[in-house]
């Protein structure tokens, strides 16, 4: 029995999070949903414990050079890469829960399930970012998806919300099916569901591995990998799998949109990085497989170019800020893909850095949206006209987020983009970097429409009721956005430790 229990310490954060979600559900049932704020406070306290455990784990992993340890017969891989994303997930879950508390359109009673579903989605993220096993990866992804579907339709009596949920379920179900089909093909071809074994095996024994299949007939393998990539592309809303994004983001309650745009998307990227890294770039990978990986890199580079261009051009025409942020998140997915397309360890850590920056600036931007939804009862950019003078702190902080989203100094978004551009050029993707730079210029236009509406219009007639707690909280995120843009050391070190733990070989070509 001991050998089954020995590993459990390593997945303590996951266990605590699971227990927390169950306690939250029971608490809500026992109190009959009388005061859902209590449930929120309980969730926040529990997330604090999880964060503490994760920080301890991060310390241990960083001390051993980020070496990976496996739990439960190799199903779960605990490494610095996964812990990096888990920490940010916990952080964004806490922020989203605070958003729910601050949401003026939300009821105060009988919404205990909101927190339960958020925590459930968190469990899904935790498992999907820390596994090399395709089966557990799929399970984590589905747990995240199922919770997201119900969260998107949380205001079930609202037509938009119900429509968002329906669209999300249909798109999600289809793409999960496509991805599972790819996984089953890959399993049938290689004889294993462990990503590392697939890449490393040379075909002389069992499992067969990818190399032998490439030598025999590359078409089935290519089909399988493209199908799986399509599943990931849906999750991170890469063109041409982005159609659900604007509608779902617009219809879902704003805190849920925040969760989908930030935590869910970053988790999708984490899995994508791990998938590509473990299959094509890992130390000791077969040379045939590595050569094929470069072609996948080119495919990803093309997708990145199309995604960022389409996202930015569509965002230009939006009048609703929520929809604009949805298209902007598509564009950002394109930028992150650049780091992946470089197919180098440095490119991967640039992508991780950008994702960390993305957490800060997008949480902030959506928080601003939520703030003014409560004030204006509208998400139109026009409704913001002249409100900058009425709520100066929030609006100034928003300008910082917008500067960061555009990628201008001195913000974390600027440094993230700089790293991505540098690694892109380094990997010989100059054309992609050029497209990305042009796109950044385009994005300047629509991001600063908000700043213009806030400050360069006549001061508005109506008053914005002060919300000191919410304002202070957004200001904190704003300080983070600027601070990490100036002191880039810590974030850079963390993302490098994370990438190191993936065991990607330096200069694979």
């Amino acid at each position, binding site marked *: *029995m*001991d*050998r*089954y*229990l020995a590993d459990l310490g390593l997945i303590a954060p996951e266990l605590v999070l699971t227990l927390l979600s*169950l306690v939250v*559900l*029971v608490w809500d*049932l026992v109190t009959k949903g009388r005061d859902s704020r209590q449930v929120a406070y309980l969730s926040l306290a529990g997330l604090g414990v999880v964060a503490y455990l994760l920080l301890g784990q991060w310390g241990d992993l960083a001390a051993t050079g980020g070496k990976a340890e496996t739990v439960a017969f190799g199903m779960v891989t605990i490494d610095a890469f996964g812990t990096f994303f888990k920490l940010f997930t916990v952080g964004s879950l806490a922020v989203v829960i605070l958003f729910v508390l601050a949401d003026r359109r939300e009821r105060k009673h*009988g919404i205990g399930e909101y927190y339960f579903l958020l925590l459930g989605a968190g469990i899904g993220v935790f498992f999907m970012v820390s596994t090399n096993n395709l089966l557990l990866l799929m399970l984590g992804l589905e747990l995240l998806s199922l919770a997201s579907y119900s969260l998107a339709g949380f205001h*079930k*009596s609202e037509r938009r919300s119900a429509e968002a949920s329906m669209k999300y379920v249909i798109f999600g179900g289809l793409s999960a099916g496509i991805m599972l089909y790819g996984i089953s093909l890959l399993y*049938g071809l290689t*004889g294993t569901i462990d990503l590392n074994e697939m890449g490393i095996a040379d075909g002389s024994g069992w499992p*067969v591995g990818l190399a032998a299949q490439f030598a*025999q007939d590359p078409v089935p393998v290519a089909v399988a990998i493209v199908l799986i990539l399509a599943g990931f592309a849906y999750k991170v809303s890469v063109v041409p799998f982005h159609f659900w994004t604007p509608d779902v983001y617009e219809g879902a309650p704003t805190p849920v949109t925040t969760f989908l745009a930030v935590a869910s998307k970053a988790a999708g990227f984490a899995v994508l990085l791990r998938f590509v890294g473990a299959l094509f770039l890992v130390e000791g990978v077969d040379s045939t497989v590595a050569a094929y990986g470069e072609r996948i890199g080119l495919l990803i580079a093309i997708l990145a170019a199309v995604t960022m261009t389409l996202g930015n051009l569509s965002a230009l025409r939006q009048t609703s800020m929520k929809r604009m942020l949805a298209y902007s998140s598509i564009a950002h997915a394109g930028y992150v893909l650049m780091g992946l397309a470089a197919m180098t360890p440095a490119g991967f850590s640039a992508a991780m850095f950008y994702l960390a920056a993305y957490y800060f600036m997008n949480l902030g931007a959506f928080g601003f949206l939520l703030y003014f939804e409560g004030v204006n009862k509208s998400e139109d950019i026009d409704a913001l006209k002249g409100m900058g003078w009425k709520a100066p702190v929030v609006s100034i902080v928003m300008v910082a987020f917008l500067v960061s989203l555009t990628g201008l100094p001195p913000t974390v978004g600027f440094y993230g983009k700089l790293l991505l551009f540098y690694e892109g050029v380094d990997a010989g993707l100059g054309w992609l970097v050029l497209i990305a730079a042009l796109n950044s210029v385009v994005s300047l236009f629509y991001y600063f429409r908000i700043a213009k509406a806030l400050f360069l219009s006549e001061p508005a007639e109506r008053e914005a009721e002060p919300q000191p707690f919410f304002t202070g909280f957004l200001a904190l995120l704003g300080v983070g956005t600027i601070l990490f843009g100036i002191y880039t050391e810590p974030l850079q070190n963390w993302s490098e430790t994370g990438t190191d733990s993936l065991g990607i070989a330096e200069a694979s070509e």
Partner: protein
Amino acid sequence: MYFDYLNVLIFCAVGLGFVFVNLIIASFLRPKRKVTEGLETYECGEEPIGDAWIQFDIRYYTVALVYVIFAVEIAFLFPWAIVLGESFRGTGAAVGTGIGAFALIEGIVFIVILFLGLAYVWAKGDLDWVLSFSGPAYQPPQERARFLPSVHELQELAEARNDEGDGEGDEAEENEEAA
């Protein structure tokens, strides 16, 4: 190739052929009596009322979902119970792995979590048949004792509606004639 895909093709062909061959044989053998009862939709021995192409009550799906959860639980617990039994009896593949007590606790945790789901559905009143989404959030059963109309009442309602429809049609015709 590590697997002969011809097997799969033959399997599919035989499976497809099986259906049609049986239907053709049956069409020669069966008696041909086209009475009304024989042509009606089979509904578990009940007399069918109206069309099947109507909007079903969403509550069917709530109950169906709860059922599916527990059906899957049973499917999972069979192999678990066998491993557990072998481990405690000291036979089979589970010997020497020491998995017995661990698996027992794990299984109990699994069942408790699932039971929590049932308790949730129960406490929220989703197992009670009469519950409206648009009405007040939740009331104890005795306060909202309302019964579904019986089949006969439904039929009478439908007939009444048909009569009304006819009446309107007649009026329209009369108006046209008058014009």
